């Protein structure tokens, strides 16, 4: 069970981080794909296993919650990361840029996904909690 959960989390995180890093041209908040992958995988596993079991199973593991949590945390970390296709600045301007991420479409996508995730609980799974 533990191994199967971890395998699902690691494979999902690998897929999600790979797709997201290519799509959004980012290496995560720490500028390193390994750390990005590690946090997504651990978060997907650590929180995914606590979610009420919904969806299909693989070797006794309900993988959909793990996948959903991995997707959500990856989206959030992308929204909190510097991305290359944002407004570019000349080197001398760069020195005065603060290190905050900007509030852009990625944050809104994350918000909408989280809202759907939360409201979905009452719509699709009202008998729990």
């Amino acid at each position, binding site marked *: 069970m533990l191994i199967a959960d971890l395998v699902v989390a690691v494979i999902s995180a690998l897929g999600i981080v790979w797709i997201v890093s290519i799509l959004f041209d980012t290496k995560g908040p720490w500028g390193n794909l390994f*750390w990005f992958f590690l946090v997504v995988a651990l978060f997907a596993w650590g929180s995914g296993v606590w979610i009420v079991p919904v969806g299909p199973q693989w070797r006794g593991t309900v993988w959909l*919650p793990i996948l959903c949590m991995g997707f959500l945390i990856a989206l959030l970390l992308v929204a909190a990361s510097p991305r290359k296709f944002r407004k570019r600045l000349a080197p001398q301007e760069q020195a005065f*840029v603060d290190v*905050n991420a900007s509030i852009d479409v990625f944050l809104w996508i994350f918000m909408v996904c989280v809202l759907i*995730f939360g409201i979905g609980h009452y719509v699709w799974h009202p008998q729990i909690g």
Partner: protein
Amino acid sequence: MFVADLLVASISALCIVWIVSITFGTKGPWGNLLWFFLVVALFAWAAGVWLVPFGPQWKGVSGLPIICMGILITLVLVAASPRSSGKRLEGHEKTMAHHENVVAVDILVWLVIISLVIMGVGHYAWYLRPN
């Protein structure tokens, strides 16, 4: 139920973000406490209601899962944020940073990793243990 869930998430997010912003000298990845609070509250609510209910209840709401998710997501966001107490890339170093405002991998990232491992292992140790 929906309103009570949201209320628990908002109040816990308010407290968590307030404590964390003072403790770590950060306003979150977006440099704005309102956005920081909004993201933490939404995530704590949305993910918290999907967790298996555990801990004491208030008005039919199991508050502990929501609070746990709030703390966890705040930790992740603080680890991904610039902090006044953390390692920063200053002035000319920023210029050399190839236009990437990366955050240092420091003790908080390890704290996030350890918390996540404890949370995951705890599921098997405490929740799945037969009575």
